[in-house]
């Protein structure tokens, strides 16, 4: 503090009036955009955990057959509607590793139901890296080694078995293969259409914009569920499950693009006013170049965020269709097909485990939502 005699204060720290113009002002921001987004996303814990979880889920898909103890359509005629079995570690105070008690079905002659009683005297350890039913690893490599299987002469229904005695746990793993990818295929279709029409409408404006907007409005005004029903009812019933699956995901994509096209168009309209776009136009860049080099890269991140928010809608759509019996059909396995078994209240009341496929749906949809939120929050890395 230096007060001068004339009553003013002057700072005495050295000052360089010619501070170099070659110095970076924000050295902390000196990185490509995706690095900045990642730095910000890392601090969004919920989104990060969801992202890792989803990544694990998708990595698991090709190996579903290896993890599942049974094949998707292995029937166990003696254990229809068997309840979930617990895996124990200690038998009468003695550690013997993971084991299950074999269950025996008995007919209850009062209620005319099968009763399953565990035989608690006979612990049977679970086998690991054992041989079981044959499956294809990633759909290519034939194998029959499983991570774990039922002990000799016993069953291993972690989440119970269904109407035909099939293992619910294994079927959920197999079902994930279809249920999780239907969203990806659907979103690619919707992405392609949405970006195409949205960017045409946003960039060229005028009459084309008008027409595309009206088409979007008409598509959005159609009631969604009946339309799905109508379109999927039109799929020939003699097609293979895989063909039906593709058609279903394409249908979902076709009905989803208008929403995306709208946000693309809105983003285009605002980005077009940015001076770097006007600068490129003044340099003589063609429309295609402006869209490719300037507009798309700058809102791709927004698109990815909005896509991750609309994948859950696709997954739910597939589930709803299959639940109603109009989407995938047996022998294909998806979560919706499995829930088809849990359609009436009576069966849920008596066999609550048949509704377990709801859990992965809820978890996956939430995870996608958290991930999308996290991405959206971190897209503007310049904010403090």
């Amino acid at each position: 503090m230096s007060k001068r005699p004339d009553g003013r204060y002057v700072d005495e720290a050295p000052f360089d009036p010619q501070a170099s113009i070659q110095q970076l002002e924000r050295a902390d921001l000196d990185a490509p955009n995706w690095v900045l987004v990642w730095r910000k996303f890392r601090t969004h814990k919920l989104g990060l955990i969801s992202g890792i979880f989803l990544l694990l889920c998708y990595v698991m898909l090709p190996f579903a057959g290896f993890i599942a103890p049974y094949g998707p359509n292995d029937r166990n005629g003696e254990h229809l509607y068997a309840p979930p079995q617990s895996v124990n570690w200690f038998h009468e105070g003695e550690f013997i590793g993971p084991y299950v008690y074999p269950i025996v079905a008995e007919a209850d002659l009062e209620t005319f139901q099968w009763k399953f009683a565990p035989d608690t005297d006979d612990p049977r350890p679970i086998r690991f890296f054992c041989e079981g039913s044959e499956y294809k690893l990633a759909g290519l490599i034939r194998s029959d080694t499983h991570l774990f299987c039922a002990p000799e002469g016993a069953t291993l229904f972690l989440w119970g078995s269904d109407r035909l005695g099939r293992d619910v746990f294994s079927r959920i793993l197999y079902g994930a293969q279809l249920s999780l990818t239907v969203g990806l295929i659907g979103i690619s279709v919707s992405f392609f259409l949405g970006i195409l029409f949205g960017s045409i409408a946003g960039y060229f404006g005028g009459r084309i914009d008008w027409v595309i907007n009206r088409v979007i409005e008409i598509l959005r005004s159609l009631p969604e569920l009946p339309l799905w029903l109508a379109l999927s009812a039109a799929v020939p019933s003699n097609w293979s499950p895989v063909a039906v699956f593709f058609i279903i995901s394409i249908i979902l994509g076709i009905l989803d693009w208008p929403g995306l096209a709208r946000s693309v168009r809105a983003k285009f309209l605002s980005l077009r006013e940015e001076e770097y776009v006007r600068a490129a136009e003044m340099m003589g860049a063609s429309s295609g170049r402006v869209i490719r080099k300037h507009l798309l890269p700058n809102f791709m991140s927004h698109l990815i965020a909005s896509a991750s928010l609309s994948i859950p809608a696709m997954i739910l759509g597939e589930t709803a269709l299959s639940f109603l019996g109009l989407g995938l059909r047996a022998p294909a396995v998806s979560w919706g097909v499995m829930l088809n078994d849990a359609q009436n209240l009576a069966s849920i009341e008596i066999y609550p485990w048949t509704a377990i496929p709801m859990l992965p749906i809820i978890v996956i949809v939430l995870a996608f939502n958290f991930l999308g939120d996290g991405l959206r929050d971190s897209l503007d890395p310049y904010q403090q």
Partner: protein
Amino acid sequence: MSALLSVRDLSIGFGSGPSVVRDVSFDVEPGQTLALVGESGSGKTISCRAALRILPRTAQIRSGTITLNDSHGAADLMKLSERQMRSIRGNRVSMIFQEPMRSLSPLHKIGNQVSEVLWLHRGASDSEARKEVLTQFERVGFPDPARAYDSYPFELSGGMRQRAMIAMAMVAKPELLIADEPTTALDVTTQAQVLGLIKELQRETGMALILVTHDLGVVANMAEHVVVMHKGRVMEAGPAALILNEPAHPYTQQLFDAAPEIPDQDSVGIPMPDEDLILQMTDVSKTYTMRSSKGWKAEKLIHACRGVDMKLARGKTLAIVGESGSGKTTAARIALGAELPDPGGKVLFRTTKDSEPITVHHMTRAERTAFQRKAQMVFQDPYSSLSPRMRIQDAMTEPLEIHRLGNVSEQRDKAAEMLQRVGLNEDMLKRYPHAFSGGQRQRLSIARAMMLDPALIVCDEPTSALDVSVQEQILTLLENLQDSLNLSYLFISHDLAVVARIADEVAVMRRGLVVEQAPPETLFYNPRHPYTKALIAAQPEPDINRPIDLKLVALGAGSPDSWDDAFRFSDSVIPSLVELEPGHKVRCHV
């Protein structure tokens, strides 16, 4: 006498980063004006927002005390509860914000928004509040207070909105008003009037004022005390007369040297030469049709610019000056061929002295490509003129790629050469634009415009988003480039003082019409049009002995039908441009 507001050793930081404001202390005496001067990022806004505790969420006050000592007694603003703070905000201390467009709610009537202050702090009834607000409106200069009370913000101009903000801030009769760049978003004539209004109100009510500004000219007109801030620290503080007359700190000195000034002239200038014209605009008009709000009425015609005649000689600078909406940008866009003039208008561009002119108003594809190589543009906002996804190198070489000039390594060398020309470093090529400051980005966009070796560069307010010291550097850079490369500039600006130093001829525009056109020396020596006179008078000068002449401003800044008979124009009767002396044209009835 104890100070009304006293800030001691204030430090503020964001998150875990270093403090952005360090050890700032200042006092505001009752009834006096303190100016906080500094460039963007100097921490001046944050410091005074801290006084009202309206900081962004992530900011924390790390140390220091702020004491308010008014007629209600002393209060430590750091320690009060949120509830007690609310009774101070708007009541004992109020604030005016920078953006008049954004600081009023668009869904509420102006009157109700202002009355809310009274409802909250005085518990006034509707009719009492209305009466008081109407008196206040009259005092801040609304011609029809009752109508203003019932209008929505979008019905008012920027200057009127800022008056409404002032009314809102003043209606509870605070003892301290904090004005955060109250005039930065306004045109220079409106700025002069708003500053005059604040000063007058201050004289009437005896309140104290903290004026946050980056403009030393405003300081000279308003303040008794000055605090100069730089990078979060106080550089110099003391009485205005002392600091403005003999700045002691090199930073203050630097601000002074950079402040644009309208020079005193004692003779007329040399008119723009007639031979070797690079750009020639003849009778250029642009009319937009706007659909009327009522379906049955005829479409409305909007004359963005009318009958513009301009010529620009090679190696010279032609400046167009005017407020927002005066048509200057439209004229520039027509000159660049981005917009077509109304039929009859002609724009001719000559690449070299003897070449066939390109008719910019009617180009074939090949002509357009050739034209784009020779005419480039520098934009206003350095933050949006570079794509955040492209490395500097990609942004710089893009023009060459588009016109398929040279191979990759030649393009890179050219980009490096241009960076050095604008004073930047070659290794910046690999970086991304967000790491750079506003001034550096503006240099980058100038460098990009130079990549095609153009002959003409249109500068659309290239310095209005920059700090004064940076503005000075950019203008120097533009001058140097012009000297070494014989460039021609079409320079758009709202600021006569900026144009004063760079232009060879100035056209002053108002409502789509050129009202006066002359070399700058002539214009400042012998301004004839009342609007030009108002513009010159309204320019705040960093000289405490030359206050703004509000009478002269009021005479010319009003609508064209309030001008003297000789200059008056309406939609139907427009006087023509008359050449009063060689190279000096004025729109008047002779």
